[in-house]
């Protein structure tokens, strides 16, 4: 990593990791479950993270591992929660708006491919005494301190806000109180709502507890 004369092992590792990143990225769209799609994407990101370590970006590469691990877990769980696909094991199509997506994909491939082939990249070998972690820290907490800190504060405020809004014991009482599940048919009775105990319902042996 001191200069440009890296070994053959680095080239082989790069090719294998790049293939892994592309193949798992493709699998994200071909699989049939949101949990699988999230974790295929995670594998793709991890492969990119290892490539970043090969490029001497040792902090950013390793940071990719833990950030994406937590991010993809949370994403998978939230998708399962919101998409009404119990546990994400049921088969489900992972693509939508296919025509636009194909167009955007082809255009993106052409533009990026043209850039890779036609652009002239700077040839700056990594200096021998480079300390990647220290220089990154100086960049983030030096010149870019204001941006970095304001982004951090906004994220923290958002997180606290989400926790307060989604907390079971909310500011205005229990979160579940007064909420009504939607009906099974349009305009129908709320699904799973306990029946009222009314006189005249002969032969009905269910007893619901009212609090």
């Amino acid at each position, binding site marked *: 990593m001191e200069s440009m004369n890296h070994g053959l092992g680095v080239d082989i590792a790069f090719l294998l990791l790049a293939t892994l990143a592309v193949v798992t990225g493709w699998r994200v769209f071909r699989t049939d479950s949101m949990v699988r799609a999230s*974790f295929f994407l995670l594998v793709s990101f991890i492969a990119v993270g290892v490539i970043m370590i090969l490029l001497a970006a040792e*902090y950013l590469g*390793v940071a990719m*591992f833990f950030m994406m691990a*937590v991010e993809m*877990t949370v994403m998978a769980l939230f998708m399962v929660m919101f998409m009404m696909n119990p546990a994400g094991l049921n088969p489900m199509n992972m693509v939508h708006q296919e025509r636009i997506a194909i167009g955007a994909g082809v255009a993106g491939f052409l533009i990026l491919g043209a850039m890779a082939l036609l652009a002239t990249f700077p040839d700056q070998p990594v200096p021998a005494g480079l300390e990647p*972690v220290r220089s990154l820290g100086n960049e983030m907490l030096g010149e870019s301190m204001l941006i970095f800190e304001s982004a951090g504060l906004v994220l923290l405020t958002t997180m606290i806000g989400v926790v307060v809004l989604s907390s079971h014991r909310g500011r205005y009482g229990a979160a579940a109180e007064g909420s009504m599940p939607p009906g099974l048919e349009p305009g129908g009775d709320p699904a799973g709502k306990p029946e009222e105990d009314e006189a005249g319902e002969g032969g009905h042996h269910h007893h619901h507890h009212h609090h």
Partner: protein
Amino acid sequence: MFSELFLPVLMVIFMLVVGGYAVAVLDRLVASALGVPQAGGIWLAPMARGAWLLTQHANATEAPDWRAWRLAPALYLALAAGGLAVVPWSASLVATDLVTSVVLWGSVEALATVVIFLHGWSANSLLALIGGYRYVALGLSYILISMFVLIGVALPAESLQFTQVVASQEGLWNVIRQPLGLPLFLIVGLGMTFWGPLNLADSTDLAGGTASEISGPPRLVWDMARAAMLVAFSGVAATAFLGGWLGPWLPGPLWISLKMLAVLSVLLLLGRLLPRLAPERCVTLMWVVLLPLSFIDLVWAGIGALL
């Protein structure tokens, strides 16, 4: 070539095998010292159980995600190997002396959440799934506590490298310099290996949780991986708080082995002595008590580094 490529791999594999066996033996020693009757000899029983599991049939559930289900135990073992690879045995004997090895250990903890969740999810079975969800809900708080505590040990070292963290403890070990650090970190260790009081992912109230449906060789790999993760964790704890290879008279690798054995014994003893927490209470304990304590630890470490 040999010392660069094969020696680190051999070191890690040796530690995976010997460490896993040591955990099984130590746990039985601790149990028999506490008066729990043990079937079979303490030294041979782990091997007998391993051989028995190898010959058993691997259970199948209805429509599992086969690849994830079979890969998850192996991946957990691989994460333990990644953790062991960053533990320095002496100033020069380290499998991987990455400049961001503290962060790499943080990613091992984060990726463990993914693997444990996958293990529970892919079995396509109710209790295993609940175990997986439970771990995700709790794992997030373990990761946060661990992160603050580890930033605390990185501060006096002014580095994210475990060898530097050890070197910074030449005068005073972090266990004394940051008194809150090691107790908090031990709780993280019990949590991320879901051992003893924090075994909520594979607990008996879920009939085994994420491991409720596995038997035979996958079961053996899963059990070995949990033991190996405990060993990797004790290596990181000994490095971050107990001065790693530092110590008089004995050579460095022997010192860290002794310290790792001490951490392991404490964890296994806690695992046998403490009752299992209720998951809801555990979440409250983590976020309301332990996370603020880890903030205090970090502020303490920061003030200490400034003075």
